[in-house]
């Protein structure tokens, strides 16, 4: 083999070694995932109407007495990725498989602007007494409670966030070359 060819091969090998001896690419991806801090996967916006709840005693009274309030809410759920590290992934390079373990999804934002709670409808039949100012104020106050304790938990946003986070991680690691991506959640039964 001539000197010329030998030199080319040697230099090419040195270049190849230099290029391939870079940082572990997965370390960079894991750092990027952790840097996202919180992955907001799922957002719901609500324009909610609530009415005065008729008591058991009220239903036996003649005529209707209805008061409706509306208000808006914005709820965001997702995954806290600030602690994401190598401990959260198991890689089987030969099989092109990665298993990612994520924390449980959580609701991160619940915004219910008080100034946007307003009366929408009021109807009192002639046999019934009108709504007193105090009663109206109480219904308005109960509005936020009802949203936080009854309506928002009933939306199933955390389940949706779990589904969305699983999907996000699957397409991300698929794009990084892993054919099989398994996503688990901590404390998942």
């Amino acid at each position, binding site marked *: 083999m001539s*000197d*010329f060819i030998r*030199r*080319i091969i040697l*230099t*090419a090998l040195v*270049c190849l070694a230099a290029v391939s001896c870079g940082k572990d690419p997965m370390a*960079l*991806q894991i750092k*990027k*995932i952790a840097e*996202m801090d919180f*992955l*907001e*996967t799922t*957002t*719901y*916006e*609500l*324009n*909610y*109407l609530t*009415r005065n709840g008729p008591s058991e005693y009220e239903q036996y009274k003649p005529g*209707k007495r*209805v008061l*409706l309030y*509306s208000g*808006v809410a914005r709820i965001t759920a997702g995954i806290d990725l600030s602690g994401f590290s190598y401990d959260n992934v198991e890689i089987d390079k030969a099989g092109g498989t990665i298993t990612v373990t994520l924390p449980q999804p959580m609701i991160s934002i619940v915004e219910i602007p008080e100034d946007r709670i307003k009366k*929408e*409808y009021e*109807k009192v039949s002639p046999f019934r007494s009108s709504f007193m100012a105090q009663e109206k104020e109480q219904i308005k106050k109960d509005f936020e409670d009802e949203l936080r304790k009854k309506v928002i938990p009933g*939306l199933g946003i955390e389940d949706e966030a779990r589904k*969305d986070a699983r*999907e*996000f991680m*699957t*397409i*991300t690691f*698929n*794009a*990084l070359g892993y054919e099989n991506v398994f996503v688990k959640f901590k404390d998942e039964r």
Partner: protein
Amino acid sequence: MKDERRKGMMDMRKTIPTILALTVLLIFCCCSKKDKELQRIIDATVVNKERIANLASLEFHDDVLLFDRNGPDTTAVIIARPTLVFGLDLKDLSRDSFEKSADGDTIFVTIPPAQVIHFICNPQDREIISADKGWDADRRMKVMVNRAREAALRDAYEKRVVERATQHAIENLNKFLSITTDKVISVRVGEPETQSSLKLSAPKG
């Protein structure tokens, strides 16, 4: 002495083409790596476009108060609770939606703005607040659902839900692509490719 100098000259003549050849090879490798990177991003996005479209969605739960008149003296007041799901229609996403900056460090992705991809209003999502005798619930409910859809669309535009849905989609796509590449990703919003099947057209009723 003369022989050694000649040998040195001969070596130089061999070395210079070697260096030149390697430089050309390196430039070629770098350029093809850049193009491969762009192609990889395009493939990852286009192959997964349906899944990305679902990820980039926002739900708008809108309670709508509807007043109905069925005959001269027959009225009803109803709350309908429809849900509009805003998302991306990425069926037209293609290679042309991706562009590389002149320096090759930034990749621009153009997506359409968010639009309504689902409308949900089930029978359990309706509540009759008051109805006069003779108000035909079975017949009028279909009309009520259509009006609820129109009202919800109008609310979504008025409350700027569409803009926030688009922003949510941009953020999620940006996060996804930024993890998969070292390039800077810039997601832009272009013109809508197709109109939503749920148009905002009906008058307020």
